[in-house]
């Protein structure tokens, strides 16, 4: 955090000065480790074992927050008799189909219920097997189907995650053998300190210290926060990393309370915003799913699974209709299903890596790169360039000529002779981009806070904002098609696309766009909150979770009341979604009766005299719903959530320790080894995540793991990371003299022991080799990297900052060249943080000798097409 989010880290240091214990769990020793009380340098890819060990510690030592767990989590929920855990099936859950390498989720459901997620993914009869008659009727209404499993999952469930059709049967004593609590206890029973130490390469004392610190610091009077970044997400089990932390934090009562939570630190100024208002294939704004072919035939079938459900997703139809009205305006009427049929349908995996393979296969003809540099930033950069080289046309918008714009001229494959410039048919348009100082607009930061940045100056020359580019491209296309009678052009011609423009360059008004996002009523008045949205077409709102950002005609995101002039929550600086709430699910900061758990940790509470929730923040709960509210039978949406159920986006109002539906790889996080690992999985026969997604291709070969023949050719673990002085793929930092001077060169970090083993000299050169390619780096021999003792062997790790490429002021090989494309099955994020490699002294070969070296490694390792595709040994 000190390394990549330094200014945010000031608050950690402030907490430390006030007595907080700071624990850093990271393979790297960084600026964070240097000032932490405890640094746990575990092996890259072993975090579920570590966190699972903490869950086990909390359960076996009775350190959980019992009242919170019983009232606010699904620990008391009773599961079906036919559910089988990884303890029963040696690393698999019930429902696994080894041929399709995927799960049938039906046995993971609560007893008496057939689970179905709230939005996006829904079980069908085929998937659930032979459920009870009643459940059959329920499932028939849900979306989904065999093909639907191909679509990305976790993000499709919305901000509240998936949900179940009705509330589970509960055992508040937590003693029923099939209640979630007991299942959890059995699942993690073997994650003992000794096993954790063996998998992670740490000492049992280090583990116990962390366990004691976090349990001592959790409960009524104290809270513990977890902070993570892509070190947790970029794994074949990335979503389950976060899940393990969720289980731990829910058990300790650290969710929805000040000083608690699981906080994602995101790496780009508005990467949160580009998830909320998604430039993502599987989502529409506000985490509404993209409609799916064959399932979502019309608005009714699209919204059927959610209408009538408990929780705020029960109003999903209002959110969807308001979006359609924002996009198609007066053309969208109840009679034409509000133009629902104008939406294109997805039918499987259309994610970034799938798209790149489709470029190579020739089905993708045109590509827009809007401030992103995949030839450096994405895994297996060669695959990216092979895709770019096979397009008909490419539009690159950036500040300078990034590697993804010049691959045809100076990409690594030109040097090796694998490509020739003259052979590459891609037509490339490079359009210079405007900077943040040259345009109005909002970024959504890592805490869901929208902040407006004002335009200071005009962009230079032909540089323009993406708002300008997109608006005018749409305008030109609509002009060219204006006389078309082809029905396929109606969605374009009926689109609301009449934004006012300003100034000599005709810049569209970002404020007008934000107003459309924030929503208006039939009279054109700005809406204040998403609870005002209607399904009858009387409201328009471009992103329901952002509803209210333009309330009262005021750009709420531009509010800048100085922090020193307001409360510590600072509600009048910017605007946070939803409804300017700063801590989600903060009803959990009070006990079931609505009283603060403690004076020290009070945040929002029920004021019986005023009959409303009050406190430091806007309550994430209906303002006047009393703690003793009980839903009437048949109540729906928020009315079905009781007054003591804080998790209002969930149909059961509870935090999920066990996920009865919606995850591709299991209801409970389980330690699997990375797809490429030098060691075996001591817990289960199942070595790696059985449902991880692989994309075999001649340029994307996988390496053998764990003692399989050839695995000795790639004996070391490597991990990638960032440096304070550079930004992601380098387009905004390697071009700057200041930053290039501060971090001038690509390097690898190795321990003195590994340097001795391989003959590497400090400040000399090393070549790092995988089955994909070989790259060179300056050697930093440092005891910041330590050899680890794992499974009775010494395992070396190599650290590689990934910012470099061939262009800019500071140049070097890209670490992402080394990575395979192998993905988490829930969210389709690649495993960047743990893979295997070899390292040798000296620079890498030039020209055709480079692919020859890599081919020689592949031959020595016996790598063929199917290598690595089977997770079992």
């Amino acid at each position: 955090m000190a390394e990549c989010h330094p200014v945010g880290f000031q608050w950690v240091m402030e907490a430390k000065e006030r007595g907080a214990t700071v624990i850093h769990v990271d393979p790297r020793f960084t600026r964070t480790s240097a000032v932490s009380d405890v640094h746990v340098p575990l092996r890259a890819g072993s975090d579920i074992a570590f966190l699972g060990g903490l869950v086990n510690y909390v359960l076996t030592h009775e350190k959980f927050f019992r009242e919170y767990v019983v009232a606010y989590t699904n620990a008391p929920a009773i599961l079906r008799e036919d559910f089988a855990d990884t303890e029963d099936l040696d690393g698999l859950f019930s429902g696994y189909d080894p041929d399709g390498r995927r799960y049938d989720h039906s046995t993971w459901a609560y007893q008496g219920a057939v689970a179905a997620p709230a939005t996006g993914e829904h079980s069908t009869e085929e998937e659930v097997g032979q459920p009870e008659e009643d459940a059959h009727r329920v499932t028939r209404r849900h979306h989904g189907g065999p093909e639907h499993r191909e679509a990305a999952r976790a993000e499709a469930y919305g901000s509240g995650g998936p949900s179940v059709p009705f509330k589970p049967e509960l055992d508040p004593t937590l003693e029923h053998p099939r209640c979630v609590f007991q299942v959890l206890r059995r699942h993690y029973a073997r994650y003992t300190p000794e096993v954790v130490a063996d998998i992670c390469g740490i000492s049992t004392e280090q583990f116990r210290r962390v366990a004691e610190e976090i349990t001592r610091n959790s409960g009524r009077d104290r809270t513990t926060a977890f902070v993570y970044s892509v070190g947790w997400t970029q794994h074949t089990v990335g979503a389950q990393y976060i899940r393990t932390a969720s289980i731990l934090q829910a058990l300790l009562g650290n969710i929805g309370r000040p000083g608690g939570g699981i906080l994602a630190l995101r790496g780009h100024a508005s990467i949160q915003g580009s998830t909320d208002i998604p430039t993502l294939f599987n989502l529409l704004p506000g985490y509404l799913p993209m409609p799916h072919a064959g399932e979502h035939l019309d608005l009714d079938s699209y919204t059927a699974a959610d209408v009538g459900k408990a929780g705020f997703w029960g109003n999903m139809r209002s959110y969807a209709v308001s979006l359609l009205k924002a996009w198609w305006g007066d053309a969208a009427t109840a009679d034409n299903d509000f133009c629902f049929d104008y939406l294109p349908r997805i039918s499987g995996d259309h994610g970034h890596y799938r798209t790149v393979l489709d470029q190579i296969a020739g089905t993708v003809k045109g590509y827009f790169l809007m401030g992103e540099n995949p030839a450096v930033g994405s895994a297996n950069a060669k695959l990216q360039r092979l895709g770019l080289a096979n397009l008909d046309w490419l539009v690159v918008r950036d500040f300078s000529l990034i590697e993804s714009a010049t691959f045809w001229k100076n990409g690594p494959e030109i040097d090796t002779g694998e490509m020739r410039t003259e052979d590459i048919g891609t037509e490339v348009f490079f359009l210079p981009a405007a900077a943040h100082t040259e345009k109005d607009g909002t970024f959504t930061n890592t805490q869901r806070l929208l902040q407006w940045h004002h335009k200071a100056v005009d962009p230079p020359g032909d540089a323009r904002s993406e708002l300008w580019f997109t608006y005018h491209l749409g305008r030109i296309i609509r002009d060219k098609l204006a006389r078309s009678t082809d029905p396929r052009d109606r969605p374009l011609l009926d689109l609301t696309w009449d934004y006012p423009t300003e100034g000599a360059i005709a810049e569209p008004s970002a404020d007008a766009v934000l107003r459309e996002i924030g929503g208006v009523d039939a009279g054109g008045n700005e809406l204040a909150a998403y609870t005002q949205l209607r399904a009858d077409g009387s409201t328009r709102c471009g992103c329901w979770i952002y509803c209210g950002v333009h309330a009262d005609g005021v750009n709420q995101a531009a509010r800048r009341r100085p922090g020193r002039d307001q409360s510590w929550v600072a509600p009048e600086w910017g605007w946070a979604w939803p409804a300017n709430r700063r801590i989600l699910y903060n009803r959990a900061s009070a006990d079931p009766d609505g009283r603060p758990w403690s004076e020290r940790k009070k945040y929002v509470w029920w004021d019986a005299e005023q009959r409303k929730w009050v406190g430091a923040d806007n309550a994430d709960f209906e303002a006047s719903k009393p703690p003793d509210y009980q839903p009437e039978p048949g109540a729906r949406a928020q009315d079905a959530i009781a007054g003591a159920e804080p998790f209002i986006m969930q149909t059961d109002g509870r935090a999920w320790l066990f996920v009865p539906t919606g995850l591709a790889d299991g209801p409970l996080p389980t330690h699997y080894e990375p797809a490429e690992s030098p060691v075996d999985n001591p817990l289960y026969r199942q070595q790696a995540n059985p449902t991880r997604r692989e994309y075999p291709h001649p340029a994307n070969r996988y390496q053998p793991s764990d003692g399989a023949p050839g695995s000795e050719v790639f004996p070391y673990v490597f991990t990638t990371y960032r440096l304070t002085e550079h930004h992601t793929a380098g387009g905004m930092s390697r071009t700057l003299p200041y930053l290039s001077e501060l971090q001038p060169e690509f390097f690898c970090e190795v321990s003195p022991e590994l340097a001795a083993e391989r003959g590497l000299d400090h400040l000399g050169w090393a070549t790092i080799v995988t089955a994909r390619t070989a790259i060179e780096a300056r050697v930093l021999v440092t005891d910041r990297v330590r050899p680890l003792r794992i499974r009775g062997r010494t395992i070396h790790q190599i650290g590689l900052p990934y910012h470099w490429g061939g262009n800019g002021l500071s140049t070097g090989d890209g670490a992402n060249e080394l990575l395979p494309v192998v993905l988490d099955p829930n969210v389709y994020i690649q495993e960047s943080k743990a893979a295997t490699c070899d390292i040798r002294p000296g620079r890498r070969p030039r020209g055709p000798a480079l692919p020859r070296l890599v081919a020689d490694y592949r031959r020595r390792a016996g790598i063929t097409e199917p290598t690595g595709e089977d997770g079992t040994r």
Partner: protein
Amino acid sequence: MGVRQWIEGWPVVRQLTGADPLGRGAAAESRVTSALRPRTSQADRVVASVCPYCAVGCGQKVYVRDGKVTQIEGDPDSPISRGRLCPKGSASKQLVTNPNRVTTVLYRRPHGTEWEELPLDRAMDMIADRVIETRRRHWQEEDGGQRVRRTMAIASLGGATLDNEENYLMKKLYTALGAIQIENQARI
């Protein structure tokens, strides 16, 4: 200028006779340095902004003079950053005033070996034509008997560095075009 003033103008005299015997303050000051003013005090305007690098969202104050960005400082009013910026945020003036920025449209024709220049409006028109033509030729009304109404031939990557309003217009236009392979760094 009299002799006495001339002599007292020597830094060494001021150092020996004045209150700055180590010569690190007033004694070392020349007329040029005494006339120097910080760029922040000479700005025509100060514009409230947000750092464009990571997602912490530090407040920035952008100082503008004669239509140019002359300085970017941390905004002490921000309850997030309290005036602080990291090395990248501190370098953001160089990001926006960088002479290495490309400010003209560049074009590489198929199989071409060099960049060529292209007027912006011509580039926009050509891109619009390519979008229309690619969409027309590669339109999918159905896939396996299921209605899809889309094109699988146009894809986009990027958005995490952009504004919400920009992502919104991109998603809106792409969806109306029937393009679905729309992705950004959040997937990575």
